[in-house]
């Protein structure tokens, strides 16, 4: 039994859905991930429109200088700080800073990690050995301590803080990508590409990398949360950005850490800002991980 050509022309084939379409389908059905999206959208909107939403300027003296500044209430939604600045305003502008810090430092870590990881994974041999031993070395120092050391050397400018936090993340990305590439390197499609004479660089960039990148994307999302917390932690140990006017959440919190009894709102609100933004990022990251690899339940 066979079908005629006319019948065959009428048969419609559904295009097979790709990895990303499938992943998006699963992501959409994950309520936790959607909560994450909402949190992050709020966070991003706050960052973009800080100047429009905020009732004051971040460094404007909006109320009296006070050792025990007023808490939430009246025209100051989240209260005032000791310099009489509006806490709500500063938290809004802090979102800009945290977003910037997260994006830049993860980009630094990702870029360096991608280059080193793919070189190690693709070239193998001595290059692999050399790169991975340096990565091992970096991983043998606790992350925050490495960041502390780097900031101590490079100074407390915003740029060097972002660099330090980014560099700490390099080994994680490099290892992940290398492992992923090693898994792909011997795959049939790579052999096929090589055998038809695709040059090595294009095999790596055009074939292996796109197939190895999924776990790296998940990690990059989660690393944003780590970066935000790490910068706040640096501020907390007194190695935050040295410009006192910058409304960095960690620094706002740290400056008032020993005044819990008198003005808890100065610690509570910046802290909650950190918690909600990192929670949002973590929810999205987890959602992505489950969407990309449904076999993983963690």
């Amino acid at each position, binding site marked *: 039994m066979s079908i005629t050509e006319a019948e065959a022309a009428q048969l419609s084939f559904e295009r097979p859905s790709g990895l990303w379409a499938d992943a998006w389908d699963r992501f959409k059905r994950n309520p936790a991930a959607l909560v994450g999206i909402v949190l992050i959208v709020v966070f991003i909107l706050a960052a973009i429109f800080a100047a429009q939403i905020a009732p004051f300027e971040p460094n404007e003296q909006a109320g009296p200088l006070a050792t025990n500044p007023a808490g939430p209430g009246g025209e100051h939604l989240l209260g005032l700080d000791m310099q009489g600045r509006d806490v709500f305003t500063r938290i809004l502008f802090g979102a800009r800073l945290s977003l910037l810090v997260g994006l830049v430092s993860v980009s630094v870590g990702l870029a360096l990690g991608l280059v080193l990881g793919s070189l190690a994974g693709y070239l193998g041999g001595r290059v692999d050995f050399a790169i991975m031993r340096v990565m091992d070395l970096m991983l043998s120092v*606790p992350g925050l301590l490495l960041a502390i050391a780097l900031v101590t*050397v490079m100074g407390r400018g915003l740029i060097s803080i972002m660099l330090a936090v980014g560099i700490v993340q390099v080994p994680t990305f490099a290892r992940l990508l290398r492992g992923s590439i090693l898994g792909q390197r011997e795959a049939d499609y790579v052999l096929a590409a090589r055998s038809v004479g695709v040059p090595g660089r294009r095999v790596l960039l055009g074939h292996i990398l796109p197939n190895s990148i999924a776990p790296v994307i998940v990690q990059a999302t989660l690393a944003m949360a780590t970066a935000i917390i790490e910068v706040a*932690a640096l501020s907390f*140990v007194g190695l935050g950005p040295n410009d006192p006017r910058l409304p960095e959440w960690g620094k706002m919190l740290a400056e008032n850490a020993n005044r*819990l009894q008198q003005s808890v709102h100065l*610690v509570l609100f910046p*802290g909650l800002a950190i*918690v909600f933004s990192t*929670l949002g990022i973590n929810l999205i990251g987890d959602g992505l991980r489950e969407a990309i690899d449904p076999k993983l339940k963690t």
Partner: protein
Amino acid sequence: MLAYVVRRLLLMFPILLGLSLLVFLFVRALPGGPAIALLGERANDQSIEQINEALGLDQPVHVQYGRYLKNVASGDLGASVRTRQPVTDELARRFPATVELSIAAMFFAILLGIPLGFIAAKRYGGILDNASLVASLIGVSIPVFFLALLLKYLFAVKLGWLPTIGRLSLTEQLDHPTNFYIVDAIVTGNWSALRDALEHLVLPAIALGTIPLAIVARITRAATLDVLSEDYVRTARAKGLDPRVVDRRHVLKNAMLPVVTVIGLQTGLLLTGAVLTETVFAWPGLGTLVLDAIRFRDYAVLQGGILFFAVVFVVVNLLVDISYAFLNPRIRYR
């Protein structure tokens, strides 16, 4: 197995050597330098030169590194410029404090995390399961220092139940044969000091243990879910074994391998968390030692502290790898 352990121990040497070079370069790269740190305002070209000569800093770098290595190998990490104490003495005094805190935090995380994750998996999809998922996600999103401050505010400032700073009240007298205060109190039979030391330990341990708790609970849940669907669990049930025995002997035991992996990884990360927790509770451990060293530009302490931190980190990771083999006979190290 023994061959594996020996090989891993040997592999530690290049790592430690690399680390010592890293730390050495780090200290050389610090702005200022020890002469200026020592002299402060009184620094002038001549006095800087004198101090550099006395400290051997006028020598070529490779000569300096060689001497530094020799000193480190013979256990000499130099002396603190601030307290004039040998760095090794400082480390010996501070290290037990950090270890005590970390062990307490890990206890908290394991004792709560494993049962929580196990119950969540058994009630998969139920309210308890979802609640524990949310709780653990919040747990990993809270910065350690923020949680520490909240705990301090609630239980110490507001309720006044627990002390906020240090390891022991000033009113307590305690001898320190080991510098582990809990052990010291038990060994010397000093029960009021034991109670006091435990009270000081509660809040820092909870603060430091919360992130590991969240992670241990999640991994236990995931691993239990995996094992619950295994054939051998169904077989055990089918042949009529007591469900409690199945849970204990077949499910929990097999679910523990990934949990142990994570506990090991977390132990390393605890050291990072300890730096922050110690700051909040003025806990006289390694973390506060290193931070003070940065603040006062105490290079010898900083250098020794970071090196020591890293050594502990490397050793902990090695112990974790070795413990796998004991837990899972399927893993054979060669």
